[in-house]
């Protein structure tokens, strides 16, 4: 093994025994670490962690937008937990986070299909699949508002034409439909993100592994289970974690579609936060809800993060 800075031969040696060259290499090493880490650290510290900590501080106050704060201790938390929209919001949030599952199913199916050798025009098809994610979510939201409109929307029109329903469904006026509609529209919008990454992961599986499996007489399903699945687990976990986190923080599209209503039925935690912050002008409550959102996010993400750590260890990362 070469005698570079990281080799045990250098680092293992007591300080005073290192050659001058090795010592200066060590210094350079530390310097490199410092300089390389600095931009990221500073950035995250000032732009994220400080406001975050300040937010926790604000959640303990009654803090009007641009006004004078007054201490409330855990008052905001108590108010939120006992509010009638607390459970409504949690339920809406959990249902909305299911869009991640729908995205995964769609992405996996499409990626597997597109990986097949006999499929033509692959680059074109891949590009087409990407479209929904390529547009700003508010644009996608606007398209779906148009398509789902009970009186002039195409979807309503065909549902009635084909006799599936007799009367237009008022997607956003019905408590249950509203929640599921925003979830499904979110799924339509964001699934390509998962698709991209899963497909890339699929494409890198060496053909030899499949051939080997065939030699052993594995059928389609068995090949999937023993070759495909282990190889894409990592990618799946990565995208699930990312999309769960991002979906939970989404506000613009669901608010545009349903306005947080009817009542509070579609006021997922992030929307509730927005309403408190910018419509009631109450930053204290907004950050309180924000803390709940962080907790919910961590709870939902934790199992996948743990699985991911385990996966890394298995693969020797």
């Amino acid at each position, binding site marked *: *093994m070469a005698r*570079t800075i*990281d080799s045990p031969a250098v680092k293992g040696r007591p300080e005073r025994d290192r050659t001058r060259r090795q010592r200066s290499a060590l210094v350079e*090493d530390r310097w*490199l670490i410092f300089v*390389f*880490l600095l*931009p*990221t650290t500073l*950035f995250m510290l000032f*732009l*994220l*962690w400080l406001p*975050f900590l300040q*937010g926790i501080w604000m959640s303990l106050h009654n803090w009007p937008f641009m006004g004078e704060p007054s201490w409330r201790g855990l008052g905001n938390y108590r108010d939120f937990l006992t509010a009638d929209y607390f459970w409504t919001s949690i339920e809406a949030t959990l249902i909305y986070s299911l869009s991640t599952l729908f995205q995964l199913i*769609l992405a996996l*199916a499409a990626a597997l299909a597109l990986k*097949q*050798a*006999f499929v033509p025009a692959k*680059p074109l*098809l*891949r*590009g087409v699949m990407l*479209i*929904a*994610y*390529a*547009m*700003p979510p*508010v*644009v*996608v939201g*606007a*398209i779906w*508002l*148009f*398509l789902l409109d009970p009186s*002039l*929307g195409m979807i309503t*029109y065909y549902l009635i034409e084909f006799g599936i329903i007799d009367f237009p469904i008022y997607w956003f006026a019905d408590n249950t439909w509203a929640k599921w509609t925003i979830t499904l529209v979110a799924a339509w919008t964001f699934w390509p993100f998962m698709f991209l*990454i899963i497909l*890339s*992961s699929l*494409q*890198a599986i060496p053909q030899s592994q499949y051939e080997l499996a*065939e030699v052993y007489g594995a059928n*389609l399903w068995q090949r999937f289970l023993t070759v495909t699945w282990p190889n894409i687990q990592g990618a799946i976990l*990565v995208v699930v974690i990312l999309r769960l*986190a*991002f979906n939970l*923080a989404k506000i*613009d599209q669901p608010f545009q579609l349903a306005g947080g209503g009817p009542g509070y039925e579609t006021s997922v935690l*992030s929307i509730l936060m*927005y309403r408190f912050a910018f419509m009631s002008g109450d930053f204290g409550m907004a950050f309180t809800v*924000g803390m709940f959102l*962080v907790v919910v*996010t961590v709870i939902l*993400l934790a199992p996948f993060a743990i699985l991911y750590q385990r996966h890394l260890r298995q693969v020797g*990362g």
Partner: protein
Amino acid sequence: MTDDRSTPLQKILTYATLSVVLALVLIPYGYAIVTAFKPPYEVYEVSWWPSEISFGAWRDVFAINHFHLYLWNSLIAGLGSAVLAVAIALPGAYIFARKEFPFREPFFYIIVGTLVFPFILLIVPITIVWIRIGLFDTFLGLWLAFQIFAVPYSMWILRGYFARLPRHLEEAAQVYGCTQFQAFWRVMLPMAKPVIVSVLFLAFLQGWSDFLFSNMLTTGDGPRTAAVAIYTSTAGGERVEWGPLMVMTLLAGIPPVVLYMFAQKHLARTFAGAGH
């Protein structure tokens, strides 16, 4: 490409799946495209082919809403965001992947863990700070704001990739007399091309599609992006003009797809294997 040994079952499943997915994607989007070419009154009828191809909505979009400017702004916002994401995340990711130092793991997860943070709450503090330090209504201000959600996951993806590269590369370079930094610059970076392109692309999409931050941090004269323009011109007064909106969706969707065509290959190489 090996010869095709797939079974009929495979073929059926594949084509069925593809049809469903393509239908799901193309039918809504296709209808939007068709609507973009309809004369105004026909927007309100359900038809798949305009009775006459009308560019009225297109004219409105460019003449009244000056949309081309906003598209350009979006492009700049996205590109700058992409470049900055790599510039900020890359050095850090490399260090986290290759170097040992105390508290490395917890430190890494503190940075990546910011993904769980609801970004909307940062809008006001950031806007005020930006105004005070003169970044308000500037591209640089937008680029920096987008980093808040671009850097954590860029770092995650980058680190994973670096960690998987063979160790002996830098060591070999140093045997030949390179310093640490030179080893990084001349050996690692070129090898990291796939992941860099991937992160560039994903960060670009973030900047291109963002609405909340772009809305707060820009005014009409400044670098207002397409996302904001679409919203204010068609829904800001709560009156939605469907025709022009569909045109804008077309326009807003195409550049990223084009960019994807270039980035595809690299995306594949990045997420190969276990995706750490």
